[in-house]
């Protein structure tokens, strides 16, 4: 069993962080979307900006849209993106 998660970024978030996907170790204590977002934001620079608290972002776990309180577990695919604008 792996302790890593896959994190994906889309649209303006992807452009700001300059990365569309990465594998990261899930740090101890990071068990929710909100905590993961804060953890990534703490990298500073573009991360602090792209995932800034004032930004209305959406998240998905294993390709299902979820609220910030949703659980994140090792092996999950997590995505951060702005509100959708298709159709």
């Amino acid at each position, binding site marked *: 069993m792996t302790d890593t998660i896959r994190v994906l970024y889309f*649209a303006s978030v992807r452009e700001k962080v300059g990365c569309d996907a990465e594998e990261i170790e899930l740090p101890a204590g990071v068990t929710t979307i909100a905590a993961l977002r804060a953890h990534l934001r703490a990298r500073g620079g573009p991360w602090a900006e792209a995932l800034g608290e004032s930004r209305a972002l959406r998240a998905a776990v294993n390709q299902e849209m979820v609220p910030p309180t949703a659980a994140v577990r090792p092996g999950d695919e997590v995505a951060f993106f702005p509100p*959708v604008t298709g159709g």
Partner: protein
Amino acid sequence: MKIVVQREDFDPGAEIAALARETAVGAVASFVGLVRDENEGARVGAMTLEHYPGMTEKAIRAIVGEAMRRWQVRGCTVIHRVGELKPGDRIVLVAVASAHRGDAFAACEFIMDYLKTRAPFWKKEQTAQGERWVEARASDDAAAARWQEPARKAV
């Protein structure tokens, strides 16, 4: 149920005809979304549609499944394009077949409203002032919220 995400254009007439083939179908309601040459006061020269492969199809399947739970639906086709598009290009088709028109209309509009707020697509516009990501509209959230069923009372 036919759900496709593709770069290529599609043929609304052929899709509607395919849904109408079953003779118990009395009604096909459909919607075609197109790239407009103007948005929020700026001329739009082109547009790029990004999506989240895998999740997109799943999200649309869930939306269509919810529509089939709520209304009598005999067939449904959703096609959404991604990639580079120009003004006048078709973006999306939603077509719903039913025995009666009320179900077809309601399911078609429901699917469009939910697709607008729940399917992971993002539009970037090329305008004379440069590129910009299209911002989500409050009116789309309001349109989707109309369909919310009354919450069940906790027991």
